[in-house]
């Protein structure tokens, strides 16, 4: 816009504001209110900063976290699917507080016979039941998968303890002083569940054809709970949705399995020479120098041969892990094993895959490459992957994450055929679960309380990693112009956000208390962050702040406040309105065009202007010294408008403005000056509760268009309606809101002017069928 149009626009704006102000005065007496402004700062929602956590969102100078170290011997009996374990646990109190007792998590107790989790949901009778179902429900023998804790001791003497369902309190003889460690021993066993028939995050899959089991084992030992400055002991029971809060520590784990099993686990394999064959050792070395293609360490042929073995003897695999928050392992004689090296910063990391032959021909092709690609993308946006390996294990139907190792679905049919859907589903879940190494395995948020802190951030990152994977491996996305991501794009969350409010919870809800965990903890926060990056902050500011958060809280325990605060602290973008709306409420985006008025400039005072000026005692504005040269705007089509006023010379009705220009601008300046002919006032309305920038595309009569973004702050004084003015030399023929669908606007029918009847998706489909 040139100088003149700025001048005119500001006049119109001033005029409009004053008229609105004048109307307000007519209202009756009103009640007062608390501060309800959507831009008010979040003092009412965020915790008061302290020496543990700063107002900047970083760990404070007295930040502490306790550690839990484990030495364990685990034996898996493949015939009975029972795990026997014994552990020596060392808990170290780095807090400034004295601890009277310790809390441990007994997650398997959610599978005990009398588990109250089975009754957590309301349920009616089904109108009809298959006889088998009836028997199963009312007469059947239930699976008993809880932990049998056989001993808890300190130096050989029994230690008092109390089990409260999925939590166990260990009562020490003396309280644990700050800076001190406490070591005790536990022995236990439990029956492993079939995770295919009994949906779970850990367990075994049984293969009828060859009689083998493939184990993906986690939550297999009593784990220390987190004690910290925000929750005290985090001992909220495990009801099934909210995952874990776990302290960091060092692990030494010996796992005994049938001698013909192939195993992977969290940590370094310290007796590789004993458990690998010579051939495997050589191939493993080869894989360490292969950066493009995975090297087969156990081939399909070898795995198929091993399937028939059923060894009676056993082998013990020894693992050592440092600074991990958990431990998991996968073992079976069915596993094929491949690996390659990937460079992450100046580190080298092994990308590894384990899968039964049922995963092929898909897994050998994409799993390890997906692991490697994920480490590259995530490391760029956060920090260099600090562990020495990342493993993807194929498990039917489930995707689940642990430090360095994860389980992923995606299986071809019995003939080895698979659709694009199965392929992309598999690549996506691998990217997602490997990505969880960053959130929450290293940026160790409290999953029990906040599902979105790891799932939302990770699903957001997953979108970026998927898109980069598509760019790196164009042959993987053949037939698509980009990787078909399921979550992340704003339009994909609309169906959820516009839904029945009775079935939507704010993102800031405990995972047990939400109606749709997928949208609540994954889809909506991921989309919100995507919008924040692309539309609100821009990638530069967002990426720097996001990386700052990841690096500040790497190997620590962040809270939501730490995330919200860091994103603002590192970017100088006030986001309180964004967090409040997107994370603390169930409001949705709906912005529309209410109306458009066109004006021309005139020196003749309009009726409206006269009334306004009269209030200030100016009754004859044309002769009043202060307003004699004033420019007024007249609405085209309004009461005082006359067709004859329209002319090619926009200044015809405003001779004094013409004189003003002649007096104040040089000839050269006037030649370059585009004198606007059209003066628009566009009224935007906001039926949706969420505040968002107004993104407008103006299309002119000559076919050119211009995209303008009015900041979200435009709504701070009026949350329902706002007007904007525009002076142009070309006629506007079309106005479109959010033309690139960046904001998750739930109703697009009010986004265009003039209102156009767009052919609906349904009409288009029907037409294509006819």
């Amino acid at each position, binding site marked *: 816009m040139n100088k003149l149009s700025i001048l005119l626009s500001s006049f119109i704006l001033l005029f409009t504001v004053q008229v609105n102000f004048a109307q307000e005065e007519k209202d009756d007496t009103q009640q007062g209110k608390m501060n309800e402004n959507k831009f008010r700062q979040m003092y009412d929602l965020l915790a008061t900063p302290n020496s543990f956590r700063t107002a900047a969102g970083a760990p404070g100078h007295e930040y502490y976290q306790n550690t839990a170290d484990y030495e364990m011997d685990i034996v898996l009996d493949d015939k009975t699917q029972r795990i026997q374990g014994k552990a020596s646990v060392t808990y170290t109190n780095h807090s400034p507080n004295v601890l009277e007792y310790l809390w441990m998590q007994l997650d398997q107790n959610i599978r005990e016979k009398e588990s109250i989790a089975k009754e957590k*949901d309301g349920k009616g009778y089904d109108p009809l039941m298959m006889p088998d179902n009836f028997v199963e429900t009312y007469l059947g023998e239930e699976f008993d998968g809880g932990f049998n804790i056989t001993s808890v001791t300190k130096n050989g003497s029994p230690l008092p303890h109390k089990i409260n369902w999925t939590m166990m309190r260990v009562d020490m003889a003396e309280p644990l002083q700050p800076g001190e460690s406490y070591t005790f021993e536990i022995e236990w066993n439990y029956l492993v569940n079939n995770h295919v028939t009994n*949906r779970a995050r850990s367990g075994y899959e049984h293969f009828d054809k060859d009689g083998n089991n493939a184990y993906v084992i986690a939550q297999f030992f009593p784990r220390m709970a987190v004690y910290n400055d925000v929750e005290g002991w985090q001992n909220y029971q495990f009801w099934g949705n909210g995952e874990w809060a776990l302290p960091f520590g060092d692990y030494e784990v010996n796992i005994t399995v049938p001698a013909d099993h192939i195993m992977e686990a969290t940590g370094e394999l310290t007796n590789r020479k004993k458990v690998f064959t010579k051939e495997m050792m050589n191939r493993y070395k080869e894989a360490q120098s292969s950066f493009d293609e995975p090297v087969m360490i156990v081939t399909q042929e070898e795995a198929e041969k091993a399937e028939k073995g059923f060894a009676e003897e056993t082998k013990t695999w020894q693992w050592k892990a440092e600074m991990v928050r958990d431990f998991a392992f996968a073992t079976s004689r069915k596993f094929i094993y491949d690996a390659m090296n990937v460079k992450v910063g100046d580190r080298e990391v092994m990308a590894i895959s384990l899968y039964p032959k049922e995963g092929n021909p898909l897994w050998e092709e994409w799993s390890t490459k997906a692991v490697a690609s994920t480490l590259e993308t995530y490391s760029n946006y956060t920090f260099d992957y600090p562990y020495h390996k990342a493993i993807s294990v194929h498990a039917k139907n489930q995707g689940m994450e642990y430090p360095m190792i994860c389980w992923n679905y995606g299986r071809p049919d019995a003939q080895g055929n698979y659709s694009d*859907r199965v392929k992309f589903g598999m690549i996506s879940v691998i990217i997602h679960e490997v990505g969880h190494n960053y959130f929450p395995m290293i940026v160790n948020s409290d999953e029990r309380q906040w599902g979105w802190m790891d799932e939302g951030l990770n699903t957001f990152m997953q979108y970026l990693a998927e898109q980069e994977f598509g760019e790196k491996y164009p042959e993987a996305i053949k037939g698509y112009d980009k990787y078909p991501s399921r979550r992340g794009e704003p339009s994909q969350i609309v169906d959820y956000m516009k*839904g029945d409010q009775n079935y939507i919870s704010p993102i800031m809800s405990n995972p047990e208390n939400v109606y749709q965990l997928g949208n609540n903890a994954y889809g909506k926060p991921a989309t919100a962050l995507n919008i924040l990056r692309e539309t609100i902050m821009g990638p530069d500011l967002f990426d720097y702040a996001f990386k700052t958060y990841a690096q500040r809280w790497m190997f620590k325990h962040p809270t939501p406040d730490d995330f919200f605060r860091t994103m603002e602290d590192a970017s100088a973008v006030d986001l309180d309105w964004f967090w409040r709306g997107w994370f603390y409420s169930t409001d949705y985006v709906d912005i529309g065009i209410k109306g458009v008025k066109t004006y021309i400039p005139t020196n003749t005072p309009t009726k409206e202007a006269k009334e306004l000026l009269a209030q200030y005692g100016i009754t004859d504005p044309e002769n009043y010294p202060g307003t004699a040269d004033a420019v007024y705007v007249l609405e085209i089509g309004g009461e005082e408008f006359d067709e004859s006023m329209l002319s090619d010379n926009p200044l015809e009705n405003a001779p004094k403005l013409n004189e003003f220009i002649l007096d104040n601008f040089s000839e050269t300046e006037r030649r370059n000056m585009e004198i606007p002919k059209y003066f628009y006032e566009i009224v935007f309305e906001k039926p949706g509760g969420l505040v968002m920038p107004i993104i407008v595309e103006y299309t002119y009569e000559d076919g050119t268009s211009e995209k303008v973004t009015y900041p979200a702050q435009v709504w701070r004084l009026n949350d329902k309606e706002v007007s904007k003015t525009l002076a142009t030399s070309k006629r506007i023929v079309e106005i479109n809101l959010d033309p690139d669908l960046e904001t998750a606007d739930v109703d697009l029918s009010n986004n265009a002017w003039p209102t156009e009847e767009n052919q609906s998706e*349904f009409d288009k489909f029907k037409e294509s069928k006819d």
Partner: protein
Amino acid sequence: MILKFLLKYVFFLLIIAGLFGFNAHKFYVSVTNLEYREDLKSIQIITKVFADDFEDILKLRYAEEVILSPESESNHADELIDRYIQAKFKIELDGVKQELNYLGKKYKHDQIHLFIEIADVEQFKKAQVSNLLLTDMFDDQKNLIHFKKDGKTKSAVNLKSDAKALLKFN
């Protein structure tokens, strides 16, 4: 042969039903957008379901191999889908049961969009929607409903345990 197949799937269904565990990254949700088009005297329905679940339920109910995938779709896929829709999706307008015409489908990412129409619909005040697609597969299946009429949208959720949603338009 068929009998064995059926039994296997019935078994699978039974075990899933009634257990509390869940799959960490899979959620059972569908979305249905309905719109009353007075100009066309029709109700236009688009239902979005997860393709893999939908394929599984067709196999399970009709004990037939069926592949739902744009690359290698089974010939009888549409016939089975229509049969399933007629069995599990019911709409009454002002108390009168309506006939749902399944027009076809589109694949999008890992979902299928089903296009369904009710023809010759005069103005009405109440709609009862009962969309139980996939609730015979998963106890925790949630079917979200958005019904647009005269510029206003009413939303509801159909669950196995709460199968009918009554939407009032005034």
